[in-house]
């Protein structure tokens, strides 16, 4: 009986160990998952080529590295940080929000705002003279010519 208990215990422990190992194995990341991260990185060697479409051996190595890191449970951000540390910030598709890179995020919106303001001012200055002219016409008291015309019209009415 004692021996039977020991056998049961040993089998249970082995089964638990096997189950644990199976649970620890994460499925290998698919090409789509790898490319989703690679798309946000650029090849450090061939300029302006996203890593997901780069055909060189170096890029194939980097995609495999992404696959390895994903399999180890790394997040997309962690992988991007690793690449930036290894190969420089130039491999990032989106410049890091630090140092002079901030200019990339600040300058275009500021220029758009300034451009919008200039357009607004130009539009205002184009509209003003028309509005003023209209205003002048409405508020101008009848001139001497107008009274003359009025008299002519009255005479014409009397004759008709």
């Amino acid at each position, binding site marked *: 009986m004692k021996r039977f208990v020991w056998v049961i215990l040993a089998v249970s422990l082995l089964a638990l160990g096997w189950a644990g190992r199976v649970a620890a194995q994460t499925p290998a990341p698919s090409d789509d998952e790898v490319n989703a991260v690679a798309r946000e990185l650029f090849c450090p060697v061939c300029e302006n080529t996203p890593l997901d479409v780069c055909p060189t051996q170096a890029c194939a190595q980097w995609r495999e590295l992404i696959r390895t890191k994903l399999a180890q449970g790394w997040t997309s951000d962690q992988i991007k940080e690793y690449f930036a*540390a290894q190969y420089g910030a130039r491999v990032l598709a989106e410049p890091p929000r630090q140092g*002079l890179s901030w200019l990339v995020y600040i300058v275009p919106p500021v220029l758009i705002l300034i451009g919008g303001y200039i357009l607004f001012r130009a539009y205002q200055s184009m509209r003003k003279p028309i509005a*003023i*002219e209209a205003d002048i016409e409405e508020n101008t008291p009848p*001139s001497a010519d107008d009274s003359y015309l009025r008299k002519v019209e009255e005479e014409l009415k009397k004759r008709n």
Partner: protein
Amino acid sequence: MSEELIPETSAAPRRGVPAWAQVIVWVALLSLLALVAFGLKRSQQKPIQVGDTLPDFTLSFFDGYQAMGKSDLQLSALRGKVVVINFWASWCKPCEQEAAAMQAVWSTYEPGGQVVFVGVDYVDTEPEARGYLKKFGITYPNGPDLGTRISQMFRITGVPETYFVDKDGKLAFAQIGPFTTEAEIHAIIDPLIKK
């Protein structure tokens, strides 16, 4: 009469952009232009020329590699020695052409202690880099160019490139592309040792 009124209204004082805003816009514009000019100047810088004193850098080696009992190397600490800096990568086929020759030449100078060979691994993945070093039996210290700082400093145009530094820390020769024979490498180093 109405014709007389219009010029009066159009001559009314126009509200312009405040002076402080104009100053800010001009300062911002000039700063941006200065930044662009700085970037352009930097991008058009030429590679290090023969006779130039090399900028100092520190290279941390791959595990298992050492130079003078240390796991990293500072170029300025090697004054008085001839230094050979080889840029390579595991994905670089031309690098493979010269790898064996570089190691063979290193093994002839290593006992003398007058020459230091350093391998700088350019934008590479560590497992493949280690595989490359093992494949060619490279024993001189090698390390990754983290953040491509060293290669940017040298403004390398590709790999392989090899830089020979004289005992005064000045660039004596730059080889762009692979060496084909050991004799080529000896022919550069020997005069530098005698100097």
